């Protein structure tokens, strides 16, 4: 029982980065743009998240203000990087797949460069920890799993219904969905396709940055080159898997993070099983899911990946 509690609790904790990045990616994909650079934005976010707390505290505990500033700086940089990506794929109309890889290399390389210069080595920080919710966390089994989590975990799961509301009930969400499915129709009715797409990339990038900061501030409580290790790409895959809907994406994030926790369980319980195969599991799962869920291809925003050009005569 103890094992299961530990595993489930861990699964929720480590699903947050995936969930945040994936919800962000859902928004910009709904507007018609897929951003493979999500991984690079997360790297930058991870670095910025821990930069300020480390700079001030050098590994010792500091005022929570710096942690919050760390989160904010990561989020803002994420939005900026998202819009920078927009410059390349919206204004210049470059192909989104390759451009995404370019952004990923830029972000990961920049994070690594800046980290080695300003921090270096393997410095850990106290990060963000929140006390368990009183009373609720004492409930056997459910308590430790659901109510003893970091505050950002609750924020992330709150974003699930919130993002659904924004996408399906607000005017902006309506415009986003129209722009991703039939940008020409949206354009002809007076919606600024370019502006909506930039905004959606800003939102997507901001959430990716926040997700990265979560990794360094809350989950690993440090930064290293391999801190993101493919989560950004998995987040993009999750959007397909979740059929561009918040709740399904949430379940996907939980499923994949469960697969990721296998590795930790094996190592901490000393099971004699090559840990590399456990580490492989989430990536294999992505491929399996993509292979068998071909339906999702048809459900996606029709204009996903296609640059919008008013001048082109159909």
């Amino acid at each position, binding site marked *: 029982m103890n094992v299961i509690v530990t595993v489930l609790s861990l699964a929720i904790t480590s699903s947050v980065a995936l969930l945040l990045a994936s919800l962000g990616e859902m928004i910009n994909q709904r507007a018609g743009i897929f951003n*493979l650079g999500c991984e*690079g934005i997360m790297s930058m976010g991870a670095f910025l998240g821990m930069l300020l707390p480390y700079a001030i505290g050098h590994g010792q505990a500091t005022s929570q203000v710096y942690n919050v500033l760390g989160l904010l700086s990561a989020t803002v940089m994420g939005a900026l990087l998202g819009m920078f990506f927009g410059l*390349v794929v919206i204004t*210049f*109309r*470059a*192909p989104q*797949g*390759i*451009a*995404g*890889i*370019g*952004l*990923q*290399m*830029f*972000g*990961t*390389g*920049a994070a*690594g*460069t*800046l980290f*080695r*210069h*300003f921090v270096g080595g393997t410095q850990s920080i106290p990060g963000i920890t929140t006390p368990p919710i009183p009373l609720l966390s004492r409930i056997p089994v459910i308590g430790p799993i659901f109510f003893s989590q970091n505050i950002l975990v609750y924020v992330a799961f709150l974003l699930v219904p919130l993002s659904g509301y924004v996408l399906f009930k607000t005017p902006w969400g309506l415009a986003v969905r129209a722009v991703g499915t039939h940008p020409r129709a949206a354009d002809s009715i007076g919606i600024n396709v370019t502006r909506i797409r930039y905004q959606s990339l800003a939102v997507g990038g901001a959430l990716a940055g926040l997700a990265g900061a979560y990794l360094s501030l809350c989950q690993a409580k440090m930064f290293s080159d391999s801190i993101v*290790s*493919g989560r950004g*790409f998995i987040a*993009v*895959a999750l959007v*397909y898997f979740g059929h561009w809907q918040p709740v399904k994406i949430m379940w996907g994030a939980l499923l994949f993070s469960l697969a990721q926790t296998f590795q930790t369980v094996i190592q901490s319980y000393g099971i004699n099983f*090559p840990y*590399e*195969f456990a*580490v*492989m599991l989430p*990536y*294999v799962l*992505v*491929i399996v899911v*993509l*292979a068998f869920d*071909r339906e999702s*291809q048809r459900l996606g925003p029709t204009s996903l990946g296609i640059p919008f050009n008013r*001048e082109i005569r159909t």
Partner: protein
Amino acid sequence: MTNQFKILYKICIVLLAVLATMAMGAVILIAIGAPVMKTYAVIIFQPLQNIGLISEVLIRTIPLTIIALGIAVAYRSGIINIGAEGQMAMGILATTAVALAVPTLPKVILLPLVLLAGIAGGALWGAIPGLLKAKLQVSELLSTVMLNYIAEQFYTFCLRKPMLDPAEMTTGSGTPQSMRLTKNIWLTRFIPGTRLHTGIFIAIGFAILIYLLLWKTPFGYKMRAAGSSERAARYGGINVAKYLVIAMLFSGGFAGLAGAVEICGVHHRAIQGITSGYGFSGIVVALFGGLHPAGIIPAAFFFGLLLVGGNMTQNAVGVPANMVQVLQGVIILVIVATQMVLSNAYLMERVWKKTRRKEVAA
């Protein structure tokens, strides 16, 4: 519009692109307080100082060329291969396995055999995303990236367990690597005092092969048609799915070959970190080289320069080697954006009209 204007216009665009690249790289350099122009100078010029350094550049040019050729074949056939890292790793494993299995075969047989094994290893790993796309329409962008991570783990496992150097086991130092492989597979280092090996001829040979294949044969014609317009090719009776898989076999095989060549020419054993970014660098080289063998070879040299120079910046100007990845990312972004600008006839007309108005007014 005069031809003179067209050429001038395109040169200006390219110059602006170069400036944009340097400016974006400068953003990071300034953030870490490094001297911008000096850093660029170190990267580009320091590796050219002596024969030894130039040979190091050439050594990196070899795998970059081979991988980029494979990526170009795939790209022109309509599939973007981001999985060269993993395919290279699998090629290395196959090469090492064969070399460990039959080390006593004479060089004349063993060397081609292990190179073929490398090609096969990479090709099989590349066939997976190819088949996934052809049969199940799975986007290769995601599947190749995932396979990279999977291959990375499998590679580490093999070096830690089944292929571990027996010497490591006894000394207990635990470095995951295979034992030194038989001299029968070593590619000759033909310039004394350097590590430059005969793999360079393999690279050039394959460049010529790819040129002939893609542009001079009906087979290559069909691949290019499938990549340029998948629908029209299908309507024209070309079996696009078949060529997709073949393209990935080529692409993966080339990455695997690059891995085999690295083992046989440079490291002589399988160690961690051989692939270290070659797979991604290969993509940039392919794009930079215009997806054509004639452009890929000089592009590969340029990026070899970048890699060697990038290693020197930490000592010279205090810039971490990760800066190379930053520059590669920037270059990709600038290249794809520039390609769109260059192919925008509307923009060229507008600029032409503006210049003419200035002349009339003057």
